């Protein structure tokens, strides 16, 4: 996404003197908002590193660091297993959704065929069906397949997503037709055109879609909640709740587990910040 800046030349003299105060207000607003957005995450990490006797400390800076909470969280629940499970589910869902999205996007962008508008509409409409509306029939289907409490059941309903298909169709429609035509003149068949010509050229769009799918699958909570029976068969989002009990909450381990559950996402964000923001923005700007 490109955000152009005003060139100074278009500002009239009267406008040019104002910005200093306006900028100050703008900075103040953004700093305030940034603090609201970032402080909870900062506080989570800070608390997770505090030893048990200092857990209720209100110091805004780290005063004593300890990994006890992490050690406790890892031993109290099958944390490592759950993180691996979450990673497996997210990676597989990402790969499959990309595949179905690329194939369907190719069909919509390449051919005009009977029912294409209807099918496109039917796919777009799935966006309007909340998971809660179809949860019981889906749950029953998983039960019939004997897949309650398995990772497979977490993956199956996510074989395709309307968003991936629409984004791929849109990117491929914008792909220069001459390139496809030239490849076909050279005798390339559809598989070759798709995988050797189009896909390598859409690397950027595909990569940001992959990030978006991975993050949203990693963060998913509702569907695993329906299917989980045993912690070691589930994803990390389910594990966090085990530190919140009737008798009270184990704040230190809860914050340590929360940090571990969000660390992979935060790392992806740290490295690929531009692409992550870009991919989420595309999901909204459509």
């Amino acid at each position, binding site marked *: 996404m490109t955000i152009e*800046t*005003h060139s100074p030349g*278009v500002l009239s003299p009267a406008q040019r003197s104002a910005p200093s105060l306006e*900028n100050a207000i703008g900075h103040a*607003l*953004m*700093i305030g*908002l*940034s603090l*609201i*957005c970032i402080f*909870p*995450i900062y506080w*989570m990490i800070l608390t997770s590193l505090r030893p048990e006797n200092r857990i209720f400390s209100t110091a805004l800076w780290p005063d004593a660091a300890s990994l006890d909470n992490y050690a406790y969280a890892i031993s109290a629940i099958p944390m490592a297993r759950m993180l691996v499970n979450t990673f497996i589910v997210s990676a597989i869902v990402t790969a499959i959704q990309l595949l179905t999205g690329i*194939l369907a996007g190719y*069909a*919509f*962008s*390449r*051919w005009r*065929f009977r029912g294409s508008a209807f*099918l496109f509409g039917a*796919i777009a409409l*799935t966006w*309007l*069906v*909340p*998971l*809660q*509306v*179809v*949860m*019981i*029939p889906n749950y029953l*289907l998983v*039960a019939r397949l004997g897949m309650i409490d398995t990772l497979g059941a977490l993956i199956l309903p996510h*074989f395709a997503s309307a968003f991936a*298909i629409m984004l791929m169709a849109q990117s491929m429609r914008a792909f220069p*037709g001459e390139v496809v035509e030239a490849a076909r003149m050279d*005798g390339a068949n*559809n598989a070759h055109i798709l995988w050797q010509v189009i896909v390598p050229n859409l690397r950027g769009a595909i990569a940001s879609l992959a990030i978006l799918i991975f*993050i949203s699958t*990693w963060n998913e*909570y*509702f569907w695993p909640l*329906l299917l989980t029976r045993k912690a070691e068969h589930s994803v990390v*989002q389910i594990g966090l*709740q085990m530190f*919140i009990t009737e008798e009270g909450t184990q704040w230190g381990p*809860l914050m340590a587990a*929360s940090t571990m559950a*969000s660390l992979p*996402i*935060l790392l992806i*964000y740290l490295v690929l*910040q531009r692409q992550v923001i870009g991919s*989420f*923005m595309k999901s*909204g*700007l459509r």
Partner: protein
Amino acid sequence: MTDLAPLRLAVRDRPGMSLPSRRAYRALRPYLYLAPAIACFLIWIYEPLASAFLLSFQQWNLLPTSPRIWVGLENYRNIFNLPQLWQALDNTWYYLIGLLPLSIVLPLAIALFTQDLPARSRNLYRALIFVPMIVPPVVAAAVWRWLLDPRHGIFNLALQWLGSDPIEFLSDPQIAIWTIVFITGWKLIGFSTLILSAANAGIDASLVEAARLDGAGKWRIIRDIRLPLLSPTILLLVMMTILLGAQWSFSYIHVLTQGGPLGSTTNIYYLLWQFGFATLSVGWSSAAAVILFLGFGVVAAAVFALKARLSFYDN
């Protein structure tokens, strides 16, 4: 794009095929590429939608051994007589109304106010305010539970330091719903701000300049040029808030209040879950699901109609 590949190539591609089967393959090809996606949607969305509709006329408790009894419209009559349903619908409405300032009004103000900031600091702010959007919802719930804890949470300690009594953010029936609304909004605010900033930056600078030369002040430019041009984006965000906003609150409700105290934070999505998986009244849950889905359809149709009407601003 119609497929006009020279026959010669097709022959070379598939030498083993006879002409009719080649033609059939050609006609079927788009559907083959679509098959995996369509199959997934049929199995996991459309067929379940139809069965939810059927289940809404039946009485059943989710146990495979117990019989499903056809009860006609009984489920609908029953849930409409339940105070919980009306409370949940009211609450859903509060969620939506409460979210709009956080997901639209505030981000819009911020986007308009920060358009002249230097690009470098703007990028830093962008990176920071986007973080809540990617944090797992359960983590967000856990962290806010800690921040808002009545005895040890930093917010209440700050309030006490200021001389106020601690606030029961999550167990006071008057306050809990707004706490959840705030947390849901907290996750969205950076995202909306970025979307609106991008749309605002995309406005043709010459339009703004022309108005300025005509003597329009900053506020008139915002009112008469920027807001109308931003209206499609605003509408899109309103639609996202309505269709997804209350739905996103499920994790927070489940982790923070379980719908309580006294049902004060239960919205329609949480009620569906309670009917279905806490009390195992499949019929009631399905009837409520059908009502929700129909309500959704009406809202979506209204928004799309409005969008079509506003789209003339969209060049």
